[in-house]
């Protein structure tokens, strides 16, 4: 493994200063479950690892009007959190299938996002939940919508002297729920061939879609917000026909590649299957919850 230096930052400003000093040579270390392996396998060059797990702001996990998840909060704390289980189930779906439980002990949603894999499980879940990413840098704080955060595989909207601090997710409306699932050949310990998430708000009688947000993973260079597929459902009856229409619209925006994990045709087909299952999953949760 290439040699690098390591600093365990104690504050946001210390972390930002290190990033400013080392710029492209520096990399934020949180759970490390992607980063350490990438450096070991020479997929990423790093001269300075800035460990932020000791920074208080990135460890926050609170639900007061909105959900705030610090960038370093590991998956297991997210899926064990009662408020998240009740209100943001798609986040539980996603975080409980990232790696094995050993990975989930360390891997954070913030890290999953900053790693910017097209197949990252948590990103579609964050997109459908309307997440804002709070970023800190030398000029202070700014906020980025999560669907705008990833620029390409491994590429994000972060400047080299910025870091992700926390994710802010608004409280869902009543009669709303969310669902994320992926397709993998193995039942666990696998990378999504396709991932799909859906957040749905229904009318009080559960007969009509008030709104929906659909997001897809592993079918484009970045996880996608399926804008048309989402918006067309608003006002539509909750029916197989409406859902099929959304599935077809979701398939339209998929531009998958063929690789060892699946062919483009297989992925496009799976977008339809998984979008349907995600929508139905969210709808069933609303019905079960009422």
């Amino acid at each position, binding site marked *: 493994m290439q040699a690098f230096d390591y600093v365990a930052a104690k504050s946001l400003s210390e972390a930002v200063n290190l990033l400013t000093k080392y710029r492209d040579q520096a990399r934020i270390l949180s759970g490390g479950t992607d980063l350490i392996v990438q450096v070991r396998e020479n997929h990423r060059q790093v001269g300075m690892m800035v460990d932020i797990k000791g920074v208080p702001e990135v460890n926050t996990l609170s639900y007061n009007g909105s959900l705030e998840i610090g960038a370093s909060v590991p998956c297991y704390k997210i899926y064990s959190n009662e408020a998240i289980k009740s209100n943001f189930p798609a986040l539980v779906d996603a975080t409980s299938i990232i790696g094995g439980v050993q990975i989930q002990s360390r891997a954070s949603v913030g890290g999953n996002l900053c790693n910017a894999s097209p197949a990252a499980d948590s990103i579609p879940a964050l997109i459908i939940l309307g997440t804002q990413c709070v970023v800190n840098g030398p000029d202070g704080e700014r906020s980025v919508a999560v669907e705008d955060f990833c620029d390409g595989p491994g590429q994000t909207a972060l400047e080299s002297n910025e870091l992700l601090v926390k994710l802010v997710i608004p409280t869902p409306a009543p009669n709303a729920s969310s669902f994320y699932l992926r397709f993998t050949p193995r039942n*666990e310990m696998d*990378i999504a061939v396709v991932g799909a998430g859906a957040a749905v708000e229904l009318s009080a009688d559960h007969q009509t879609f008030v709104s929906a947000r659909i997001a897809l993973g592993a079918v484009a260079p970045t996880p996608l917000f399926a804008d048309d597929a989402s918006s067309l459902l608003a006002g539509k009856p909750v029916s197989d026909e409406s859902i099929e229409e959304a599935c077809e619209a979701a398939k339209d925006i998929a531009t998958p590649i063929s690789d060892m994990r699946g062919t483009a045709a297989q992925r496009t087909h799976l977008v339809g299957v998984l979008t349907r299952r995600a929508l139905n999953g969210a709808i069933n949760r609303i019905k079960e919850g009422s």
Partner: protein
Amino acid sequence: MADGNGYKVVGTRPIRHDGVDKVTGRAKYGADLNFPDMLFGKILRSPHAHAKIVSIDVSRALAHPGVKDIVTSKDLPILSENILAEDKVFYKGHAIVGLAAVDVHTAEEALSLIDIEYEVLPAVTDVAKAIREDSVVLHQSLTTNTLGEKTGKPTNISSHVRHQNGDVEAGFAEADVVVERTFTTQTVHQGYIEPITATAKYNPDGELTVWTSTQGAFNVRQQVAGILDCPASKVRVVPLEIGGGFGGKTTVYVAPVAALLAMRTGQIVKVTMTRDEVFEGTGPAPATLIRLKMGATKDGRITAADTDLFYEGGAYPGSAVGAGANCMFAAYKIPNLMIDGFDVVVNKPSSHAYRAPGAPNSSFAAECVIDEICQKLDLDPLEFRMINGAKEGDRNPIGPRHGKIGYLETVEAAQTHDHYQVEVGNGKLRGRGVASGYWGNGAGRSSVNLTVNQDGTIMLLEGSTDIGGTRASIAMQAAEVLGIAAEDVRPAVVDTNSIGETGVTGGSRTTHATGLVAIRAAESVIEQMKEKLADHWEVNLNQVDFADGTFLNSDNQISFKEAARICSPVVGSVTESTTGAGGAFGTHVVDVEVDEDTGKVEVLRYTAVQDVGTAIHPSYAEGQIQGGAVQGIGWALSEEYVYDQKGQMVNASFLDYRMPTSYDTPMVDTVMVEVPNPGHPFGVRGVGEVPLVPPLAAIANAVSRAIGVRMTHLPMNPGSVLKALNKI
């Protein structure tokens, strides 16, 4: 007392002797040895699937601080191309340069400073393409040895063997139904969890010590001594605990390089592969292309079979096509038969043994065609096997007559099992598949040394490395003969200087062969003790008896323990080339459900029946069967080497190679049929290989029946099932 088999120890389930060390993390495996001045070795491997090596310049690497030595094939006393390539590389991952440095990171850094100029050649990584006239040829010196004749023309087909029996054309003419199919399987890996590793020490007096994780310490000794051109007696191989092998650790990869670096530096050198090196640089099981035509009468009698087997040898000749041919029809009576087997080189790692080498591939074809015949004839597939199945005295279609075997017993046990009695379920795409399988099992050289302690306990030294509980199964056999408890025999696997020559722990031979030698050694101990007691009691030898753990004559009766106090020291030492391995059969039943939208196959229920002869330690015999079945689930559904256009393996990691996890598998119900093997005093048959033979076809038959489409390609991953369902 074991349950009714007449034995006291055999058939019981004692805690294995090496168990506590293994559950507490104290057992020392291959990579667990550390020495204060130890160097770490690394191997530079080819990034190309096929290339000429134009030049190698190690000067920058040698100048890197911390690097101690660098070797290439020129430094090997005897050239061994798969250890370090000479002037050509034949697969991505082919070893070229070895180096030693002060730590593993420094060694890795130095690898990137080695400059090699390649002339990249076109590569062929598919057996179907490699056999074509216009294919890239790997070895210009390789010509086909066809039916004993050399063709003289460069080719990738290294050999063509034929087995012929009866009149195939007449047999097909007699058939009411004929099925012909072409099957393909992909390269798969043994998938042992412990990477290949070796540590070597060289003393100025010429004594070389190699600590390694291996299925056969004496094989390592022979190969290392051969490549380094030194007497075997100067090489001591110390087998450490072995973290899985499945045939993959019956040859050497890094041990000669570690030894050479140790000889040259005078320091201890450890070389351990990374996981991607294991996938790309060690011998996997061959991909195969198999065409098979089989005919049967409408009352379900097989009349003829004609098959072509193309097995990938990888970079060098030597695939398991011969064993594939031997095993594929062994369960059946087939009057007319033609088997043509071809060993084909391709730009992949040199193929190597993997659990019942060759047999799963060919049996996949045979058992799937049989299933299709059953469907066409509307015959129950187990009933079909009862009609055609072999029993004692029947001829293996290409070999000698079967001795006492338990094949039909496995079929009967499957038929009557609850699993086969209940419906597979409906409403979804569900199917049930069955398949049988055979492995001939091995015998051969083993050595055991028994020392009787004064307290009546026994030290048992053996040369067989313990890959899955054989310390226990060997010790139990000695204990049975000596009339003492399994716990009173303390087994130890020792180095090549401390025991007689012993073959590999492989071919399902160890519990049979080393067990048999342990029995002989125990019998020798009893004889010696009888002699000493005769002296002690001042009676004739023939007046001393031994029965049920007790020595006695007309006036005396003492336990083994008491006798030990009188007789010690007693040593029974036996080394013997054993024979009498009994072939064994298994029949598996599996239920699957296919997700019609995603193509994913879920294994719902799995029952594996096997004739184990006599199970010495039933838990470990069951464990072998369960482990084999799950490896079969992986081979059938998810495992394969995926290659890109340039012949590069793109999934050389545990993440993307996709071996089954605990969350992908059901419990595996085992039924052990015991038809004792007459070639062993307790009736032992080898257990380990058989269970990997039936699963591929059993699962393929289940999937085919579930979706109504005959599956002929492995793995049956979601993409291929979706295609079969015409969904993509």
